[in-house]
């Protein structure tokens, strides 16, 4: 603008034909003539001095005209007059204005493309973040379902947790051991009873020996009785029959006790066999039970450990899912930068349009001045220059009046975002 005013000052000096200095010159000559005529009446010496001074003033004026020149000022190097160079410059201005206009169209186009791309990208990002958020939520729900266990299973059947299973196994193992030990105890007791029974049976054998002794003695007595009956002859015949019968009875008794002896011997053998069977029932190796129980205990501990670890990890996963949820929410909130960027882009386009408008006004003013320039009238030229200056001033005012940027953010930190 300051450059522009310099140019208009230069054109004032270089192009005028009749101006205020001419009028001033004619006015001062008239005053001097009046004074000289006045003085002529009084003093000739004074007249001479005033005449000399007047001539000096006239000489000074022409010297001044010779220095400054009433002809148009020219560039000493190229010889082009200032008015011509101003015309050239105006052409350059018009060219620049057109370029600015073209550039502005390109800027607006590109800014709109940026705005569209940011808008689309923001929408898609928001969609994919929302999907991510939903999936994280589903993951969290699943984890919670696993953690809170067995709610669904409970509805269908009785819940069997791993620890319950281990407890059941352990108590079954204890019951098994207890049963083995009690069976052994009762078996030992049974063996003692069998031993007692065996003793009783063996005592029957002793009794049988007594019985055999009695039957042998009876047999002997019957034999003696039959001998005595034979000695008695005819009188002892009846007694001999009795003695024979007694002898037969004793022999039957002997046979009978022999049979009993055999049966008792068999019974003793049977009892001993039964004792052996019970012995094998009572004698169970306890080592394998120890090993089994130790393995069971070890397995239980491991399973508990694994279960606890798994539960801990699932809690951690659930927490992570929660964090993802939070992060995605934060990310979606931050996506509002898309709106801000779009608004900024629109503002850039608006500013660019303003620049274009100002440029158009200027170029119109310059073009309209070109015909006046050709005529070369100083006064009209000054008017044109002034009108251009006015256009410049109104342009500055117009640009200053453009609303300040609607978006003050220049950072995307959380909490810095205002909604528009």
């Amino acid at each position, binding site marked *: 603008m300051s450059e522009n005013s310099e140019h208009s000052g230069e054109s004032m000096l270089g192009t005028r034909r009749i101006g205020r200095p001419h009028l001033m010159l004619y006015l001062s000559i008239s005053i001097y003539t009046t004074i000289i005529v006045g003085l002529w009446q009084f003093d000739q010496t004074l007249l001479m001095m005033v005449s000399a001074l007047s001539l000096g003033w006239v000489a000074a004026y022409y010297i001044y005209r010779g220095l400054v020149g009433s002809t148009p000022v020219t560039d000493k190097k190229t010889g082009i007059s200032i008015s011509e160079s101003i015309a050239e410059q105006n052409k350059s201005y018009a060219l620049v204005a057109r370029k600015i206009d073209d550039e502005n169209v390109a800027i607006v186009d590109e800014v709109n493309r940026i705005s569209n791309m940011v808008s689309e990208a923001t929408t898609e990002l928001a969609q994919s973040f929302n999907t991510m958020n939903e999936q994280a939520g589903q993951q969290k729900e699943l984890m919670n379902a696993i953690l809170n266990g067995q709610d669904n299973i409970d509805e269908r059947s009785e819940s069997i947790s791993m620890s319950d299973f281990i407890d059941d196994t352990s108590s079954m193992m*204890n019951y098994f*051991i*207890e049963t*083995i*030990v*009690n*069976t*052994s*105890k*009762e*078996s*030992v*007791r049974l*063996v*003692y009873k069998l*031993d007692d029974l065996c003793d009783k049976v063996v005592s029957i054998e002793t009794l049988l020996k007594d019985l055999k002794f009695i039957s042998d003695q009876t047999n002997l007595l019957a034999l003696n009785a039959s001998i005595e009956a034979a000695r008695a002859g005819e009188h002892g015949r009846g007694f001999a029959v009795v003695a024979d019968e007694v002898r037969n009875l004793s022999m039957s008794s002997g046979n009978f006790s022999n049979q009993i002896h055999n049966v008792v011997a068999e019974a003793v053998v049977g009892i001993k066999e039964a004792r052996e069977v019970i*012995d094998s029932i*009572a*004698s*169970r*190796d*306890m*080592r394998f*039970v*120890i090993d089994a*129980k130790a393995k069971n205990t070890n397995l239980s501990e491991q399973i508990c450990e694994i279960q606890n670890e798994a539960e801990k990890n699932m809690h951690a996963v659930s927490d992570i899912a929660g964090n993802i949820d939070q992060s995605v929410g934060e990310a979606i909130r931050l996506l509002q930068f898309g709106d801000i960027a779009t608004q900024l882009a629109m503002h850039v386009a608006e500013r660019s349009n303003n620049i274009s408008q100002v440029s158009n006004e200027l170029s119109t003013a310059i073009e309209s001045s070109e015909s006046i320039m050709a005529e070369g009238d100083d006064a009209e030229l000054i008017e044109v220059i002034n009108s251009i200056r006015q256009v410049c001033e109104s342009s500055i005012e117009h640009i200053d009046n453009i609303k300040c940027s609607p978006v003050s953010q220049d950072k995307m930190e959380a909490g810095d975002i205002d909604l528009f």
Partner: protein
Amino acid sequence: MSINVVRKDKEVNISISGRFDFSMNNEFRKILSAPSEVGEQFSIDMGAVEDLDSSALGMLLLLREKAGGDTANIKIQKCREDIIEMLKMANFQTMFDIS
């Protein structure tokens, strides 16, 4: 494989060695069939016992019944670690004074 019993007033000290199983049945029965006294105290030294089976545990339970069941006072002493394990597995630590 032997069993040794020493009686002194109401104290009965039993020491067992070798494998404690059904083969000690007859020896053990003598202890069981001995007349019971009120306040009898049994002390079984199992320091030399190398192994035992379920019949041994059954015999010990019969001894406990003879000594008064829940009121019985029976000490099982000097057991090896694995023997203690076996006795504990059968829950004997609640019925006997095991050391």
